[in-house]
């Protein structure tokens, strides 16, 4: 049992006269004994229970270092905590990422929130409940085994009841988590596994303050940035006299190539920005690659090549070999709400309210940029518009800090304009994959070769050099050296190693350090294109083998959960061997296990193709997903539906455009995304729940399979194979007419 150990520790702390009242995060690292078993999830790095759960007169508060981005995890975490603590769902408060209040959980990315933070909260809640039971046992002088918990209280067999709030004393929860928790039996779950309505939706549909964009601090001023017209442009001249005469003008902030203006009101700031932009002269340098030949561009840049997977069985040899090359352009996150942040510099401390995915790493970057100690910077996460990866959020936070420093005491809100978001966000990197495989006589793949060329898939801050403001200052911070992200999750090579079993296989990651276009993490990273390539190629090989694509996948897959997901999606779709879609329609199928370690997802699609225009429309998508123990099935379904829709948009329409100097896709006209005329007739998500098994990240698992399933359905409809993303109507029309 855990509680005696923990209570002893509490007594030691109290008895030593050093009653630590304030919550301390740094202790966590001092206590890290090498080799000792660690508690699960993010408890491994932030082991103190009160880093996650605090109980006081105000009630029970749950703390997570992760940032709600619209995935709905705040509700899921509340469910998890309510379940393991035995308290009513509605009685809990959840506080999200804040460098003063919550654990350092790095970035909210990679579909890891529930896996890491949710697991930490689940285990912390179970251990807190045990501590409370232990304390009640001591006070009532009863064996803990005779006590039960219900509705926020410990209850004895004789009916005596001790509320949690009354049981918590001193620093009872300021103890390290044990490696193992007594978790509830999933069969008894009353809150988890149920479709609890999201806590954030009522405010969002009634005009409540829900986003950082909605914050209004007393005396707040508005700023706008004048960004350079292109990467590397130098500000040579800027006469601010006309701008200074405008109504509401407060200040121009210039630091090298960083140029901003502050005004009393928001629209005054926009007008001032336009005037300032007219007054600024920039010297530009052409340096962008050829947008219409990314295949040649990427494969000719210097790359650091690494074999990331290899196995051989010389006895297995193939008879028929095919090769294919797939390409993906640079693509934009395209948040609907341009990035926004509020900075306020008071008594030497910079506070920034931001929708960043990483308050702690951003704090480092901002502190470095401002040349102040970390303790002088606080970042507070407030929700923004959905980001889908590293968009302008972090840059806007740095912008706000740099401007607010010039106006001590005054909160300054900065929001990017649409064209700034489109031109300056770090894009999802372009990618090239070359595949080659051989089949034997019985239609089995015996040799598989996969090469992927791409940049890093994360240039997120840590250092100041990742932030535009710091790059543009008179004493600029250099952009850090790009690094490949380590496997098994990987970056550009995410999901490059196939889940299928082949006797001979070789996977090469060709990492390109040079980044002619600003890039960073976009939802699913390399998995989007790698899965698009692998799963397109699997169907190409199935066709060559004359085997049904679903059966062909199963013939090469040992993973039992993967097989069940494939079978479920096929069954719910009504997939039949040798089936023929109606005229001008096609059926497609694809599958992946995200990162080879997170949720499983299979998607069957029906696509219609207009032969006159070449336009492809996703008519129907049927998905099956296994993300381990399900916390909120409706939230999970919402994520998978969204992944399918967004991936469909990337796959059919999206490419960042540029000339030799400037990004030219700068709004929704020049960077079209899906609109309602492209919305499917139906999307169904079937969840395979795995009671008691670990949570598996699922926010990004649909991205790759949706793309490949759609491409396979287009091939099925047209008899033509499309490998160069996006699969636009002009490409399809061209192939049909050829």
């Amino acid at each position, binding site marked *: 049992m855990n509680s005696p150990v923990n209570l002893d520790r509490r007594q030691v702390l109290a008895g030593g006269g050093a009653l630590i009242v304030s919550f301390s995060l740094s202790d966590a690292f001092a206590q890290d004994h090498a080799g000792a078993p660690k508690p699960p999830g993010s408890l491994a790095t932030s082991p103190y229970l009160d880093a996650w759960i605090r109980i006081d007169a105000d009630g029970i508060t749950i703390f997570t270092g992760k940032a709600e981005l619209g995935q709905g995890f705040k509700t899921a975490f509340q469910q998890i905590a309510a379940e393991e603590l035995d308290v009513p769902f509605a009685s809990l408060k959840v506080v999200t990422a804040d460098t003063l209040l919550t654990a350092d959980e790095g970035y909210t990315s990679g579909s890891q929130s529930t896996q890491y933070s949710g697991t930490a909260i689940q285990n912390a809640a179970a251990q807190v409940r045990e501590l409370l039971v232990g304390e009640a046992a001591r006070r009532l002088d009863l064996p803990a085994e005779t006590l039960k918990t219900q509705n926020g209280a410990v209850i004895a067999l004789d009916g005596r009841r001790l509320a949690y709030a009354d049981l918590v004393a001193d620093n009872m929860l300021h103890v390290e988590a044990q490696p193992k928790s007594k978790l509830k039996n999933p069969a008894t779950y009353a809150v988890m596994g149920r479709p609890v309505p999201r806590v954030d*939706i009522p405010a969002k549909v*009634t005009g409540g303050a829900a986003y950082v964009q909605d914050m209004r601090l007393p005396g707040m001023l508005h700023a706008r940035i004048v960004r350079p017209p292109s990467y590397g442009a130098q500000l040579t001249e800027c006469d601010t006299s006309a701008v200074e005469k405008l109504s509401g003008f407060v200040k121009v902030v210039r630091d090298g190539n960083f140029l901003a203006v502050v005004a009393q009101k928001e*629209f005054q700031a926009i007008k001032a920005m336009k005037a300032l932009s007219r007054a600024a002269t920039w010297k530009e340098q052409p340096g962008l690659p050829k947008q219409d030949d990314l295949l040649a561009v990427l494969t000719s840049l210097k790359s650091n090549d690494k074999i990331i997977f290899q196995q051989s069985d010389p006895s297995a040899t193939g008879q028929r070999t095919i090769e294919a090359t797939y390409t993906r352009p640079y693509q934009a996150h395209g948040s609907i709400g341009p990035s926004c942040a509020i900075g306020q510099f008071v008594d030497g401390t910079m506070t920034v309210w931001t929708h960043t995915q990483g308050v702690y790493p951003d704090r480092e970057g901002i502190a470095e940029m401002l040349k102040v100690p970390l303790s002088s910077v606080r970042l507070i996460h407030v929700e923004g518009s959905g980001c889908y990866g590293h968009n302008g959020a972090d840059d806007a936070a740095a912008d706000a800090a740099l401007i607010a420093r010039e106006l001590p005491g005054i909160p300054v809100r900065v*929001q990017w304009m649409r064209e700034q978001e489109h031109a300056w966000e770090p894009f999802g990197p372009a990618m090239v994959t070359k595949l080659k495989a051989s089949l034997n006589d019985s239609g089995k793949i015996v040799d598989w070769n996969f090469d992927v060329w791409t940049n890093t898939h994360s240039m997120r801050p840590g250092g100041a050099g990742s932030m535009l403001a710091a790059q543009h200052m008179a004493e600029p911070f250099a952009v850090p050296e790009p690094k490949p992200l380590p496997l098994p999750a990987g970056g550009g090579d995410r999901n490059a190693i196939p889940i299928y079993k082949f006797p001979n296989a070789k996977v090469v990651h060709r990492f390109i350090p040079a980044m002619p276009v600003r890039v960073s993490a976009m939802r699913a990273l390399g998995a989007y294109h790698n899965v698009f390539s692998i799963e397109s190629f699997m169907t190409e090989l199935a066709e060559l083998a004359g085997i049904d694509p679903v059966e062909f996948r199963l013939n090469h897959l040992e993973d039992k959960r993967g097989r069940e997901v494939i079978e479920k999606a096929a069954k719910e779709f009504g997939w039949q061997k040798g089936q023929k879609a109606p005229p001008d329609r096609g059926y497609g199928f694809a599958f992946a296990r995200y990162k080879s370690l997170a949720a499983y997802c299979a998607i069957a699609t029906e696509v219609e193709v207009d032969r006159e225009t070449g336009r492809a429309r996703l008519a129907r998508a049927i998905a099956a997903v296994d993300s381990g123990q399900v916390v909120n099935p409706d939230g999970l379904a919402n994520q998978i539906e969204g992944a399918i*829709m967004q991936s469909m948009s990337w796959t059919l329409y999206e490419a960042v455009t540029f000339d030799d100097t400037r990004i030219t896709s700068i709004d929704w006209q020049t960077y079209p*995304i899906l609109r309602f005329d492209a*919305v499917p007739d139906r999307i169904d998500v079937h969840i395979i729940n795995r009671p008691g098994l670990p949570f598996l990240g699922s926010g990004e698992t649909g991205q790759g399979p949706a793309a490949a399933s759609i491409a396979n359905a287009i091939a099925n409809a047209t008899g033509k194979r499309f490998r160069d993303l996006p699969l636009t109507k002009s490409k399809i029309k061209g192939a049909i007419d050829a």
Partner: protein
Amino acid sequence: MTTLKVNGHDHEIDADSDTPLLYVLREELRLNAAKFGCGLGQCGACTVMVDGKAVLSCVTPLLLLKGKEVTTLEGLGTIEKPAPIQRAFMEEQAAQCGYCIAGMMMRAQALLQRNPKPTDAQIRGELQTNLCRCGTHMRILRAVHRAARLMDTAELTTSGEGSAQ
């Protein structure tokens, strides 16, 4: 000073006449629902109703609104007493990040006020103006259908309660 009628109340607005309605709503009247998305009339995040019609507030200057009635999402109902369209979006859990949702709802509301029983194709056609990046479209469509049913029921019992028009 310009007088502007918003959600049934007259307001004296101290802003330049070229100021788009969006900034007047958000800054002068401290209303949150209408959002800045593009400032170009391309995405619909700023949609409100003017005299019952869906209007892109980011490209509608104050000077064009003399004598007109503006309705925002706040004017339809509250968390405690949601309008049918708000209830419908809650019941269908029709949001992910939700940044586009207020604009979607206002456009749908305008449609339902002029056509209480729209077909699925009519709803899709109407919402064509508005972008959602999270991919919540299927839920948005279900929510608008549900809102139409809820309004229909509300008509029968309380003759249009929940609508500010």
